[in-house]
């Protein structure tokens, strides 16, 4: 189960498991983002390509208006997935 929440400082907090069954829930939040934002992965245990797709579509949409997502606090396994996908080249990750 995935949980997507907005923190007081405007970060998007992901927690749980971002699998293919959670795409619509995630889209309902990510589709509302209109300016550069930080996505905090601290409590995210797992992501699949379905989750990568939501992030990619958001980044492409924001990029059209000069905005972008910054991704922080990934665990090593998720970081490996991002590297395999080449997402380290199209996202700011720290």
């Amino acid at each position, binding site marked *: *189960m995935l949980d997507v929440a907005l923190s007081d400082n405007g970060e998007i907090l992901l927690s749980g*498991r971002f*699998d*293919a*069954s959670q795409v619509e829930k995630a889209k309902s939040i990510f589709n509302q983002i209109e300016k550069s934002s930080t996505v905090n992965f601290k409590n995210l245990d*797992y992501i*699949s*390509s*379905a989750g*990568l*797709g939501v992030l*990619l*579509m958001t*980044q*492409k949409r924001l*990029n059209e208006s000069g905005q972008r997502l910054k991704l922080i606090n990934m665990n*090593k*396994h998720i970081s*490996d*997935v991002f590297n*395999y*996908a*080449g997402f380290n*080249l*199209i996202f700011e990750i720290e």
Partner: protein
Amino acid sequence: MGKKFKKDITSLDLIFDYINTFVSTWQLDASISFSIRFVVEELFTNMVKYNRGAMNDILISLKKNNQNVIIGLVDYDVEPFDLTKVADVDITKPLEFRRAGGLGIHIVKRMVDQIHYEYENRNSKITVIKNLEQHNA
């Protein structure tokens, strides 16, 4: 051996429960656990999305020997689709030319040691091997 799951994305919760039981039984580490979840989800959702035939349940099997975890998926009464022949995604393209399609299989190929595809009697069978010793080296 193995367990059958309804050919629907809503099966993922039950599939993850099945994987968690396997991981706990063999006391596999977090990295192997992540890889098994990723591989099974990507292969299963690929079979669901492209639905190349009947809506029969999909058989998922997980096995372990001294060196490997062996993941198997069987999709019954379907048209063939050999994912080992799918071209790699160009991950160096700039953002505006990137697409999400194909990323899952692209990553699976990099995450595991061997992928085999067999098609017989209208059944598609995928076997994936993840080497534990190489992982621990």
